[in-house]
């Protein structure tokens, strides 16, 4: 909608663009990778970060995602749902990376600084990222990231994360409550 800012990446026009890019990559047009990256980078990076909670690892996975897309673009079947396909690759690569590395369940302050090191990050960004990365459980963070950034519906999230829909709904609600509590002040439990 025009009056809400920012919009999730997954509008109909963007979906069509993303799918076109994948089909072009499948046809050998590597230049389409750059366009695809622009259209999907936040969705991919944010989802990888929500799983890995580590900026360098999330960057590595993000790069690997586009390499993987180049390798497997021909296996993509155009059904008007390219972003779930891209994020499914993101999830698989992130989980592989997670299995290799030993991670703490929450993000340390030092790691948070690394995540927020860009000059474009505002104080509000810092506050909400701290609340999310340090305060939410794994699935809560992944679910709310997919919903907020990629505009996925709950049933699409349930498909991607291989979870029952009611579980997604209850974790989503819990994540929002925790974030609201933190943003409006008070202890997060």
């Amino acid at each position, binding site marked *: *909608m*025009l*009056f*809400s*800012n*920012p919009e*999730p990446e997954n509008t109909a026009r963007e979906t069509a663009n993303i799918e076109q890019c994948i089909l072009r990559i499948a046809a*050998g*047009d*590597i*230049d389409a*990778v*750059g366009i695809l*990256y*622009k259209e999907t*980078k*936040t969705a991919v*990076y*944010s989802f990888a*970060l929500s799983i890995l909670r580590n*900026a360098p690892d999330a*960057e590595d996975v*993000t*790069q690997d995602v*586009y*390499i993987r897309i*180049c390798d497997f673009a021909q296996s993509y079947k155009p059904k008007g749902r390219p972003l779930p396909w891209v994020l499914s690759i993101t999830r698989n690569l992130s989980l592989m990376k997670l299995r290799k590395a030993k991670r703490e369940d929450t993000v340390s302050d030092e790691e948070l600084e690394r995540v*927020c090191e*860009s*000059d*474009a*990050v*505002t104080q*509000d*960004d*810092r506050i*909400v*990222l701290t609340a*999310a990365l340090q305060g939410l459980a794994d699935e809560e963070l992944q679910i*709310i*990231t997919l*919903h*907020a*950034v990629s505009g996925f*519906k*709950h*049933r699409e999230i*349930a*498909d991607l994360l291989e979870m029952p*829909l*009611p579980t997604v*709904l*209850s974790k989503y*609600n819990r994540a*929002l*409550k925790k*974030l*609201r509590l933190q*943003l*409006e002040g008070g202890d997060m439990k």
Partner: protein
Amino acid sequence: MKYSNRDIENMLSTAYKNITPSADCAAMSSDRPANQKVIEMSSARTRRQGWQYKVASLAAAFAIVFTGAFGYVSYNEHNAVDSIVDIDVNPSVELKLSKTDKVLEVSAANRDAEKVLSELDLADAELDDAIDMIIGAMVEYGYISEDANSVLISVSNKDEHRNEELKNMLSTEVEAVLRQRSIDPAIFSQSLRSKAAKPIAEQYGISIGKATLIQNIVKSDKSLNPGELSQLPVNDIILIAGSKAQNAVETVSGSASDKAYIGESTAKSIAANHAGSQNVQNLKVGMSIENGTMIYEVSFTVSGTPFAYDIDARTGAIIGFTGKPISNNQHNSSNNDTVPNEPEETPEEQGPVYNISSDDAKDIALSSLGITPDKAGKVSISSKTKDDRGYYEVRLTVGTRDYTYVIDGETGKIVMCGWQNNGKTPEEPAEPEEVPTEPPVPEKDPADKPQGNGTVYESGNEKTDNDDVA
């Protein structure tokens, strides 16, 4: 400061955008060797001069200009009630929507809906998310299932075009949620143009949508009691309307499930066998409600003599009938509406009573497994007697399992079922093979021993999982 769900998500989305590394687009070209990284992430993620920041600021400036100019219109579009939607299953939920499909208010029209909504936080939700959550919760609580798959969507907006848009959008969303749960949905919709049904809604404590449906049905069949109908789930109301050839509401997709009931064919057989004749004419069968119980109403004539039966739709028990049953069964297959062959007949006062045929028994077993006859291998049926009661033993093979059903010949109830692996190698299917659903059986009798690899259950009480769900 208070934050809405939307505010929180927008903040998170913005934050993620701002921390996402930019890319060196010049590094992406088809000349690069395949083993090089496709995207060079910028190591110093300073982006004040980067293209991404410039684009983001431009977009922000654009949004501010529009928001400022159209602030008043924006407020009205977001906060004034534009449409009202009723979602009726048996829980009845009312949603008030803004012009931009934002959910402004959600309320429960009955106790079941209160239970469903109590677990959900729908404040500020997008409409499709709210529908996901509401329908998902109804499935979770058992209000929507394979046995009761109907959802009624009623919309009220002054603009009929908008009504159609909303009905289509909501139907699509509901269908998607249910298909994800492997439920074949039956979706019905209507536009609410007047408040004529409001007195019925208030009298019986139901939604306007459900009241409108009931009002339409009762108009065409005054024998139906709106009070009794108001207690039924939408699925049963639609079954009753459908059996009376009423198009009380628009069908968007699917058909109301009657899997919780014995079926018209079995009801016909029970009635005809009780009447003592297979040669029935002018056969009519339909569903209705009697003292809160769903029934099949079966009527026919035998050589000009009229018969009418009310049969319990769940158990097959004959609740009432008119007409004097003929004492000897007549096997004459040359007339219309003949019922399948009976086992060797016995006079009513001697031996067991069979109200269903052997073919009916086979159908009951197949239906219990959720498969069509072509999916079953070898089938054998034999009639047995125990304690002056007649039964059918149905043996059939499905894939690698041999099933045995024992079915009461009078009521059609499954009194026992079991299976064992037959050691066969399954044939390679051309397409994914359907897995038969396990038969819905009564409580297990602890005294029973399992036969083969399967589980054997004795007949218990009639309570099923859905009995507690309205």
